[in-house]
């Protein structure tokens, strides 16, 4: 029993000391750079896939999704008039980072006003 305790403590120590990766950003900055350099439906589509990939990989590895990633994906869906998808990701940003609540709520407010104007 004593040995087991020592081993457990030792494992805990090692786990505690291992630096944790904070975020998975994938190829975000390069993929966004390509959109800036040459804004085409293709580069934007690749960037969207990159954002989805960051979200999936973060979820798989139990990492918090990096700030702004959910919001940016939601915004792209918003521009593409896929409002249900947009809502999902924008709300996800809010629940992951409560600091973004005001910002996201204002965006959604503008969205609902925009929809009313369209209708």
């Amino acid at each position, binding site marked *: 029993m004593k040995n087991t305790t020592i081993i457990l403590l030792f494992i805990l120590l090692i786990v505690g000391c291992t630096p944790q990766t904070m975020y998975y950003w994938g190829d975000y900055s390069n993929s966004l*750079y390509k959109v*800036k350099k040459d804004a085409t439906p293709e580069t934007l589509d690749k960037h969207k896939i990159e954002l989805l990939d960051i979200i999936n990989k973060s979820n798989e590895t139990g990492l918090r999704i990096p700030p702004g990633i959910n919001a940016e994906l939601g915004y792209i869906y918003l521009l593409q008039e896929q409002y249900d998808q947009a809502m999902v990701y924008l709300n996800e940003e809010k629940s992951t980072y409560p600091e973004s609540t005001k910002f996201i709520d204002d965006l959604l407010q503008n969205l609902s006003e925009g929809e009313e104007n369209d209708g």
Partner: protein
Amino acid sequence: MTVKNVIIILSLTIFIGCATTITKGEAFPKMYEEKPLSILVLPPINESTSPDAKEYYSTTIAEPLSFAGYYVFPIEIVNEVLKQEGIYDTELIVDLDASKFKEYFGADAVLFTRIIEWNTSYYVVGGNVKVHIAFDLVSTNTGELLWSYNGKLTVDTTGDGNNIGGAAGLLLQLAETAVKTAAQDYTPLAKKVNTTVLTTIPFGVYHAQHGTDQSFTGVNMKNVNK
């Protein structure tokens, strides 16, 4: 070596060490008082001669700032919102009351970045590529400067002319310089500048060492913006 000499050398070392770098806590005490959670990155102020620098630089800053432990408002969306409001040029809003960013975005602090250099220079037989960025983080509660720093990186892109002498070697060197300089991308340099500069910002709430890094040294007073 006498004891006296050792003491003199030791005190010299301490003196030299203290003269150039100080701790995060000494350099940026207001960061530890205010503990901002969220940072709104404004579009860079571009003082370089490269018109693309502003858009390209924007793609590099969110990631390292998040690793420093801050919530970074989605830069792409913020830029679009500012464009729609007609204030995408930060030069125009630099004197605006910082509390407006609390009011409209809910941000605890705003980050002003200035691209001082994003340039290629050629001299007689050589060339280089330079990136120099200055950062100022301002509180939206008090309007005070919380953290400021700047960093610069130069890459020498001079060709070696394959060590051929004479006019042929010189021509080859000129051609190589031109190719190497043109091929050098700016964003990898900007990323290195960001990483170096952000080692001096006190860690935010999402970083495991938040609130415990006051004694970290390495803040060079020469690089703190006036």
